[in-house]
């Protein structure tokens, strides 16, 4: 065959095009980093959880990369501070999908942002794990790409009402929240959960978080015959006023409900340390000290290993370990499927069963993307925080 200059040129161009478009591509894909988007509200009024998650995320990424990465591929974090603002979260998510071309996203970390970003990520079929509580954020038909690594609001309502009715053996409850959207909706759903268990909700109300004195509200609850008060607010001011007023009234009623009742801010605002007693908050089995004063063995080992490296006294342990688990679940999906293909990652997550995470034993299936089993939700004593974890509330063996 005669080799002409024209044939050589055409052949060369064809070969170069083929190598550029197809042949060399798998080689690049196999060596490029695994890009993980991290939508974090690192500043702003709701930044506390994301700061905790962030410590776990960086720890997990550093640990995986130090061990050689996943199949030789390093993890590259693409972090965007959303400041708790849904608009900024949407912009950041779009930038991660179309410009940074991430392979999976962890976050956002609050429901307001997640409600805005979840449909966008679903349209792009972007694998996403988030720790947001709002029930409607998980819907396998509408958002087959979204997986929850946290309890849903329904699970939280069930855990708190189960504790009040089945473990504390009480019958009459007051259910209160603040006047935010979260407070208002949770008062309704929590009341329904108590009613479902045959308990009487004798008082139901929302209170403005800046109300200077809650004596009238507490008197109404007492007069209604409440045996326990379920509290749904993240406002340390309102929580501490409830506790201080309870003490001033000499009313020995337990408070049960939102984990914010165990925050350090509440501890600084209560008039006396004993005002903080008899308060039980939602917690997680893996992040609670048992009667022996220890965490479950594998979590205790992790906490011991990060002592001095990650600050735990000013945050909550479950935020940190949840961040670790999220990154490990992304890495595991890439390792098991051998690629960063979005459909492959989602397909793998759909098969995760009893993943022994630090935060919880997580399971997802094609029909259910709520990761936490109800048995992992427990109640803890609010005033017992040590290294970000709490002591199990009375009644658990």
């Amino acid at each position: 065959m005669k080799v002409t200059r024209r044939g050589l040129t055409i052949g060369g161009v064809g070969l170069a095009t083929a190598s550029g478009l197809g042949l060399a591509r798998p080689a690049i894909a196999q060596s490029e980093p695994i890009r993980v988007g991290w939508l974090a509200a690192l500043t702003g009024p709701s930044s506390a959880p994301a700061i905790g998650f962030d410590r776990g995320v960086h720890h997990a990424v550093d640990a995986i990369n130090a061990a050689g990465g996943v199949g030789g591929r390093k993890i590259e974090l693409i972090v965007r501070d959303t400041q708790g603002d849904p608009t900024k979260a949407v912009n950041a998510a779009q930038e991660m999908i179309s410009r940074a071309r991430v392979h999976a996203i962890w976050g956002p970390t609050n429901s307001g942002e997640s409600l805005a970003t979840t449909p966008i990520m679903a349209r792009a079929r972007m694998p996403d794990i988030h720790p947001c509580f709002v029930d409607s954020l998980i819907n396998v038909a509408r958002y087959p790409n979204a997986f929850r690594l946290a309890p849903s609001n329904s699970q939280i309502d069930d855990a708190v009402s189960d504790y009040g009715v089945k473990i504390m053996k009480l019958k009459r409850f007051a259910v209160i929240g603040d006047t935010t959207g979260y407070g208002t909706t949770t008062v309704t759903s929590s009341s329904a959960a108590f009613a479902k268990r045959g308990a009487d909700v004798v008082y139901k109300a929302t209170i403005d978080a800046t109300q200077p004195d809650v004596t009238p509200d507490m008197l109404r609850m007492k007069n209604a015959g409440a045996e326990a008060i379920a509290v749904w607010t993240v406002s340390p001011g309102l929580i501490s006023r409830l506790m201080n007023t309870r003490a001033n009234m000499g009313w020995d009623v337990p408070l049960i409900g939102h984990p914010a009742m165990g925050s350090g801010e509440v501890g600084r605002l209560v008039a006396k340390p004993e005002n903080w007693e008899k308060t039980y908050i939602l917690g997680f089995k893996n992040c609670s000290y048992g009667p022996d004063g220890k965490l479950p063995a594998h979590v205790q080992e992790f906490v011991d290993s990060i002592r001095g490296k990650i600050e735990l006294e000013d945050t909550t342990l479950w935020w940190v370990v949840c961040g670790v688990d999220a990154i490990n679940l992304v890495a595991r999906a890439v390792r098991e499927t051998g690629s960063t293909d979005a459909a492959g990652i989602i397909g793998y997550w759909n098969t995760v069963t009893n993943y022994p995470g630090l935060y919880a034993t997580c399971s997802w299936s094609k029909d259910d993307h709520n990761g936490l089993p109800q048995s992992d939700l427990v109640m803890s004593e609010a005033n017992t925080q040590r290294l970000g974890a709490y002591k199990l509330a009375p009644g658990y063996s």
Partner: protein
Amino acid sequence: MLIAILMSGLAVGAVYALIGVTYNVMFSASRVMSFTAGQLGMLGGVLGAAFIGVLGLPAILGFILTLAVCALVGVLTEIIAVRPVLNSLEQHLYVLSTLAVALLIQQFVAIEWSTEPQPFPRLLGVGGGGPTDEKFWLPMLACAATVAGLEFLYRRTLVGRAFLAIAEDNFAARALGLPERNLRMGSYALAGVIGGVAGFASGQLLLAFFANGAMLNFYGFIPVALGGLGNNRGAIISGLLLGVFQQAANFTFGGVFASVAVFTVFIVVLLAAPQGLFGMPPQRRV
């Protein structure tokens, strides 16, 4: 139970009344409704907590420093947000300028202090949290002292009479040679002090919280509207009544319905007496 509601109602009402007086003092000197009044109250609590609780200064020194800073903020408000718009009062530009300063103060406190409420230190250690606790009677005491102080200032001192003169007719006062600008700045400093006293005295009740400013702006305005614009006695009585009514409504209706009750009464009163319960109907010169 009645005493508990009454004491907390009077305490909260005293704070609303003092913020109402803060509005009035600024209004009298400039004919401007400055929406920084609530922020001055918030600053009183935050600065008190910062000076005494964080820096560990003695309570008296912390109190004086708090009032000094609040007075300075009052003067700065006059210079930045009020003086530039005095020539176009009819366009109500002061609404924007004073709201902008109020937001600046609030955001600055949120960034530099905290977005979460912080504890305010115990000042005297009187009372165990019950109805006789200092957190309830300190705001009432501050309110009574402010009323007495203002009465003395306006009736017994030359400066106080000069304040009244520019409040009555600033053109005539200027014609008589009174330094109107300096007196206006003095009024804003005085308003800063009154707002600071309100916030400091109620620090244990309201906590040192950046969001208190907006709440005090809102509830402090009601005594002004009910008592009649510029009428300090009306603001004091209306503020105390508002506090007691609000707490009684909290007990009777509970939750957000108490706010509905408060605003229903507010609207009904203004429909019946648009000039306020203690205000005079506007008179037209003929």
